[in-house]
């Protein structure tokens, strides 16, 4: 009898080539061992606190709160982490795990470049070789991050197959892993792919809500009414939601990239426009045509420009525990500028999708309500692209 592992309701599983099966089984065994190993956890905590700068702040955005005139807004400042995003939380965990497994080489996919930069950083710190696959189109719109990865000693391989964006970078990293398994760990950047990745990445990102739950109880003496995060594959969102899932009074809201709108083909809003399918190792929702061909998706944000979503999000959607709302490019760019001017915080264009929804939601809520927005990353990398969106050509 065969037995499928890593299910979230009907979603998840391990839809991968036989060549990789022993690799993911080995990874699962190692993770099951080390996640309960006090020494591993002590080392990881030390890295998170003394290298990545955790815990991240939970900041009361007073000006934004007053300006919107509704619910009290807190920002979970993942943008303040070393390397500038939440991606470092997962990467430090996986790199440490890979090292314990005797691997000497990390490969990764990246969209906006944040996960690639985080992986290159961890590889540099731990003395490992690093190869990052990045869609050619993304290497152009995120040129600064390509330079950062190379500066950190990583090799960046521009991917030209398919749509030359994040999904193709994932495909190429998977292909590379099937050709070199012995010394190589695939450091997957989101809560997607075959089991055990969605669980491992979620556990490493759950530090976000572990902290924010404690921080909000400390600051306000009660739980928030809503937690809002952007969703591409969904790693910062699941990390932001996870420790609040049992707290039924807390609304969990994931913001998908609608691109030019969910009524157009130029969108990446998977839960809102996709159907159930099987791709990249998992069963989940995907943007696809009637024959199951994966759709070329679009968003201004290279990090959310992915045709699928992690299986645990698909399940949270199915059971109604989390809501997934679409945010257009226009709304995200407005929020990018709004947070910069109002709070002096330049968010990543990905995170700006979460800010944009909060701008709509907060005014509809009473002043005694509380919203936490996860600012998953900082926006320096996006300045040139946003300037272009506004018709201004700047040279970095």
């Amino acid at each position, binding site marked *: 009898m065969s037995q499928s592992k890593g299910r979230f309701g009907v979603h998840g599983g391990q839809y991968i080539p*036989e*060549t990789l*099966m*022993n690799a993911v089984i080995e990874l699962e065994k190692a993770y099951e061992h080390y996640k309960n190993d006090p020494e591993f956890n002590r080392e990881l905590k030390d890295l998170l606190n003394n290298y990545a700068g955790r815990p991240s702040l939970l900041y009361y955005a007073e000006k934004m709160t007053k300006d919107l005139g509704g619910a009290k807004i807190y920002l979970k400042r993942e943008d303040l982490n070393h390397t500038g995003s939440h991606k470092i939380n997962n990467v430090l965990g996986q790199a440490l795990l890979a090292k314990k497994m005797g691997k000497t080489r990390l490969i990764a996919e990246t969209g906006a470049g944040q996960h690639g930069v985080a992986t290159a950083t961890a590889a540099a710190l731990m003395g490992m070789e690093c190869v990052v696959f990045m869609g050619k189109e993304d290497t152009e719109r995120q040129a600064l991050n390509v330079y950062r990865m190379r500066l950190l000693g990583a090799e960046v391989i521009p991917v030209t197959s398919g749509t030359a964006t994040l999904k193709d970078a994932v495909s190429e990293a998977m*292909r590379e892993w099937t050709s070199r398994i012995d010394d190589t760990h695939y450091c997957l950047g989101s809560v997607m792919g075959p089991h055990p990745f969605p669980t491992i990445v979620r556990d490493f990102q759950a530090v976000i809500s572990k902290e924010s739950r404690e921080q909000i109880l400390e600051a306000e003496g009660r739980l928030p009414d809503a937690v809002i995060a952007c969703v591409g594959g969904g790693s910062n969102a699941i990390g932001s939601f996870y420790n609040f899932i049992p707290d039924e009074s807390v609304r969990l809201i994931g913001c998908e990239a609608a691109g030019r709108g969910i009524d157009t083909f130029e969108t990446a809003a998977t839960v809102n426009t996709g159907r159930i399918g*099987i791709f990249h190792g998992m069963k989940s929702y*995907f943007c696809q045509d009637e*024959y*199951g061909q*994966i759709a070329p998706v679009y968003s201004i944000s290279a990090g959310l420009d992915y045709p699928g979503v992690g299986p645990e999000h698909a399940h949270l959607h199915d059971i109604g525990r989390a809501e997934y709302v679409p945010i257009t490019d226009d709304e995200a760019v407005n929020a990018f500028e709004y947070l910069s001017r109002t709070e002096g915080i330049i968010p990543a264009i990905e995170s700006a999708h979460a800010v944009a929804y909060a701008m709509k939601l907060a005014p509809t809520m009473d002043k005694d309500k509380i919203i936490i927005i996860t600012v998953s990353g900082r926006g320096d990398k996006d300045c040139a692209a946003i300037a272009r969106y506004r018709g201004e050509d700047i040279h970095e």
Partner: protein
Amino acid sequence: MSNIRDAFRNGKAFIPFITCGDPDLETTAKAVRAAAENGADLIELGIPFSDPTAEGPVIQGANIRALAGGITTDKIFDFVAELRRDVKIPLVFMTYANVVFSYDSERFMARCCETGVGGIILPDLPFEEKEEFSAVAKQYGVDLISLIAPTSENRIAMIAKEAEGFIYIVSSLGVTGTRTEITTNIGDIVKVIRENTDVPCAVGFGISKPEQAQKMAALSDGAIVGSAIIKLLEKYGKDAPPYIGEYVKSMKDAVMSAE
């Protein structure tokens, strides 16, 4: 049970792979007939997928060309029905799980049964996930072909015990594509397979030359070739079928000479 076993009754089998609709279905039909007339024992028909993660650049290219030409799963079933009027050798589909799943797996298997397609190869459906399709496949007499890889090791026996149709031995790590050398110890893998099943096994991935096919067929029950045939289609386009016929003949001769 399907007719796949018939493919292994004429000595060592030669199994070519052809992507449907590359560059168009008319050419695919001619290529299939040329292969069948020149000794192919079983043909793997590829249903293109937008993101074929187990394929190297050559077969990725065939998928892109076929999809750009407007190929769909429905058109492929109609095409196979037409082909079946004179092509009698066993046929199997090779595609990805989402193509079957999104078509509705029961409807997919029913149409395989109608058109005489005896099996399907899904490189992204490992042993642990085969229940996704196994019940409906069985109901319609379609074999789910198992793959065994150089990294399978302790899994070979488990996979072989439940194998149907034939076993596809992946010769090398990595994705599809031609290779100058195959370093995996195929003999050791076949030994474990034979201890656990009498289902025939054929070797694929990386084979392009007659000497390689002969060597792999000597170790197993046959050789599978994909990228080398797709390269002929890439090079000659609509004029490829006679070249494919000639190539298949040379490969069938090579596997037949294998001890």
